[in-house]
C-alpha cells in the first residue's frame, strides 16, 4: 500500500481477428476510482483479467501494466498484488468465514495466533465479530460481500479491480456496500478500476470514466483517447460525472 498508481501503457486486446480494445493508456492515481463502462461483450472484464494476469489464452493482449513503479506485465497473478472482486462473492464454500479470510492473509504473518488475531480483528472492525467459525452459506448476501472484500484487503493488494461487485446486491445494500468499498479504497490510497453498468456506481466513484464503445472519438470533453480507427472500437476517457445532488 505504497500509494503508487496503476498505470496502463497502450494496453490492447484482441479475440481472434476481432479488435476488442485499441491501445489504451491510462493512469489511475492512488485512491482514485476510475469507472469502466460499455456494452456487454466489449471486453471490460477481459481488460480486468489482463490486468490481474488471468486472461484466457484465446485472447491476444499487448501493452504494459505498472503498479507503482513495478512493471507487473510478465508476473504471475499471485505476485502482482492486484486484488479483484467479482459480481459473486466467491467465498470458498469448503472453508469457514475465518479460514476464507486467513486464506487471503500473507504467509509472512507466520504464527497461528497472530493470524487468528488479525482475522478476528478484521471481522470485528467490519461489524462481523464472532463470524469466524461460520459457514459462508449461513451468511446474508451483504455479509458475504463484506467478507469477500475483507479477504481481498487482507491480501494487502497495491491496486484494486472491481468487476461489477455491487450488481447482485439489492439497492439499499448496494449503496451501503459501495460506500464501504470506496472508503477502504481512499483510506488505503488504492488505485481502483471499477467495471459497472450502473451510472450510480460511476457517480459514487467520483473519478474519471472510461467508456468503451464504437462512437467516433470526437467528444470535446474527452481526455486522451485510445488510438482506434473511426468506426472501430474505442475507449473514451471522460472526467468525473457531476453528482446529481450537490
Amino acid at each position, binding site marked *: 500500500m505504497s500509494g503508487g498508481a496503476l498505470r496502463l501503457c497502450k494496453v490492447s486486446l484482441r479475440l481472434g481477428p476481432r479488435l476488442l480494445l485499441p491501445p489504451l493508456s491510462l493512469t489511475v492515481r492512488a485512491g482514485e476510482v476510475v469507472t469502466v463502462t460499455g456494452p456487454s461483450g466489449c471486453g471490460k472484464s477481459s481488460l480486468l483479467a489482463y490486468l490481474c494476469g488471468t486472461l*484466457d489464452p484465446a485472447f491476444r493482449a499487448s501493452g504494459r501494466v505498472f503498479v507503482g513503479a513495478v512493471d507487473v506485465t510478465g508476473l504471475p*497473478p499471485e505476485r502482482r498484488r492486484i486484488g479483484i472482486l467479482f459480481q459473486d462473492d466467491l467465498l470458498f464454500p469448503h472453508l*469457514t468465514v475465518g479460514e476464507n479470510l*486467513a486464506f487471503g492473509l500473507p504467509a509472512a504473518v507466520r504464527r497461528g495466533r497472530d493470524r487468528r488475531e488479525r482475522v478476528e480483528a478484521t471481522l470485528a472492525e467490519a461489524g462481523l465479530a464472532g463470524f469466524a467459525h461460520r459457514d459462508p452459506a449461513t451468511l446474508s448476501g451483504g455479509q458475504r460481500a463484506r467478507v469477500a472484500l475483507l479477504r*481481498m484487503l487482507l491480501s494487502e493488494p497495491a491496486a484494486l479491480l472491481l468487476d461489477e461487485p455491487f450488481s447482485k446486491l439489492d439497492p439499499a445494500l448496494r449503496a451501503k456496500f459501495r460506500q464501504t468499498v470506496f472508503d477502504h479504497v481512499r483510506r488505503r490510497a488504492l488505485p481502483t478500476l471499477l467495471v459497472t453498468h450502473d451510472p450510480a456506481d460511476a457517480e459514487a466513484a467520483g473519478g474519471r470514466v472510461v467508456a468503451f464503445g464504437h462512437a467516433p472519438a470526437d467528444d470535446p470533453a474527452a481526455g486522451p483517447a485510445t488510438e482506434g480507427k473511426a468506426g472501430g472500437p474505442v475507449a473514451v476517457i471522460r472526467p468525473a460525472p457531476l453528482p446529481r445532488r450537490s
Partner: protein
Amino acid sequence: MAPPLRPVTAGHPGRGGAGALRAGSLLRPGGLLRYVPALTLSLFLAPIAAGLVGTWLPAFGWLPALGGQSFGLSAWRALFAAPELPGAVALTLGTGILATVLSFALAVGFCAACHGTRSFAWLRHVLAPLLAVPHAAVAIGLAFLVAPSGWIARLLSPWATGWETPPDLAVVRDPYGLSLVLGLVLKETPYLLLMSLGALGQVQAERAVAVARALGYGPATAWLKAVLPQIYPQIRLPLYAVLAFSLSVVDVALVLGPGTPPPLAPLLLRWFNDPDLTMRFQAAAGAGLQLVLVAAAIALWAGGERLVGRLARPWLSSGGRGGAGESLARRVIGGVTAGLIGAAALCLAGLAVWSVADRWRYPDPLPTTWTLGNWQRHVEALAWPAWTTLMVGLAAAAVATALVLGCLENEQRHGLRPSARGLWLLYAPLMVPQVSFLFGAQVLLVRLGLDGTWPALVWSHLLFVLPYVFLSLADPYRALDERYVRTALCLGASPARVFWRVKLPMLLRPVLVAFAIGFAVSVSLYLPTLFAGGGRYATLTTEAVSLAAGADRRVVGVYAFLQAMLPLLAFAAALALPAALRRRRPRRAMRRGSGSEGAG
C-alpha cells in the same frame, strides 16, 4: 466434454510484438505437470498399439517364441476351417447388435417417455449403484433368476407351471444367445441412460421440450424431435463402446452365452488357453477377425446413423405432434424400464439369498433354513482373491485419478481446449476389443519379464479404468467456476496451492466418485486379469466366472455377492466421506482456530 490429452488449441502467446507478452500469465511452465498428458497417453495407448501388433504378427505366422519364424496365411486358413467359426461369428454379430439396439432403444425410450417426471429424477439415484455392479455379478444373478430352477420358476411353480422338478429347458445359455442379450441389456441400458443424462445437461433440454410442448407436441414426441437430435452426437462414442463391448464380451458370455458354439470372444479365449500351443496362431488370427468384426459393426452403425438421420429429417418437421398412441407408448416403455431395474435388483437379491441359503428345495420360493456357513467355509479361499481385487482396484483407481487430475490441471493452467480427437483417443481402449490386443500385450509383458507381476496387473487394469475416470471427472473439473481460481491467485496463492487448497477440496466429491467408478471398473475386469496376471492372480471376478460354470449356487452366490458389494461399498464411501468431513468441519475450525488454516 472432451479430454485435454493433447494441446490442440493452445493459445498463441507472444504474437503481439515487442510489448506483447504471453497471453495470460497463467501460462507458466508447470514443472512436471507438463509431462502428465504425454505420460498418460503413452501409458494407455502404447500397450494397446503394441498389443495389436503383437497379435497381428502371430496371426500371420510370426511368433519366434513358439517357432513361428516366417510369414504366411496358415493361421487364417486354420481359422476359417474351424467348424465352430461360422456359428460363433453369427452368434457374436446377432447378440452384440441386438443387445446394443435394445439398450439404445430402451435408454432413448425411457428418456422420451419419462423426462421431467418423478421416476426420471429417481432414476438418477439408482443409476450409479446399478452401474457399479460388475457385469459378471449381474450375469450370474440373472442366471439364478431365469434358469428353470431359478427364482422366477420357483415363484410360479407348481401352481402356474405344474413343475415339481426343474424342467429340462435351456433358458440360460440358450442356443440363440437370448439370455446373453438380456444380461447385456441389463447393464448397458443404465450406462447409456447415464451418458444421456450427462448430455441432457449440456443442451438445455428442458427449454427445448417446453418450447415444443407450447407448440402443441406431446411430451415424448417433443423430446424425440427437439432433444434427441441434439444429444445424439454426444452419446455416439458411448454407443460405439457399448457395441464393441457387446460384440466382444467374454465373462458375461461364459456365464449366459451358449457353449456349442460360443460367441467368438470366448471361443478365442478357449483357443488361447489350448494346451496345443500351435492353436495360439489360429487364436491370434481370430483376434484379428474380432477386431475386424467390431470395426465393421461400428462402420455399419455409423452408416445406419446417417441413413436414419436423413430419413427422419422430414419427420422432424412433418408437424406430427404425437397423438393418442403416445400415452400408451410411454406407459409401456416406463413399465419395461421399471421391469429391467427390478430384474437387476432381483439379480443382486438372488446372489445374497443363495449365499446364505442352507436347505432350499425346489420349488420353494425361499430357503427353508438359512446359514452363514457358506461364508464361513469359504472365507479362507475368498481372502486372497478378495485382497487381490481390492489392491489392484485401489491401485489402478489411484493411479488413474492422479493422472486424470494432472491432465485436467495441466489443461486449465495452459488454457487448452478439449478436442474431439482427444475424446476418440480416450475411447480407444473401450472400442478396441480386449481379446484383440491382450494376447499381444501379454507377449510384450513376457518379453519385458513383467507378466504375472503386480505392476503388469495394475497397468492392464489402468487401460480400462483411466477412460472412465476421465469421463467422470472432466465435466465437474471443467465446470468449477474459474473465478474461484482467479480470486485465490489474486489473493497471492500459487497455482499449486490453489490446486491443493481450493480446487481439490471443492471437487472432493466428484474426485471420490471418479475414484469409485475407476475401482468399480477394475473390480469388473475379467480378461485383463487373465492375460496380464499370467494365471498367478485370481480376482473375485475370475473366480466367480469360473465357479459359475458348475459349482454349487451357494458358493457362486458368496463370490458373486462379494464381487457386487465391493464397488457398492466404494461408492457409499465416496458419497459419505465428503459429508462426514463437512460435518466435522465446524468443530475442527473451532478447535484449531480459524486463522491457523491459512498459514502457508
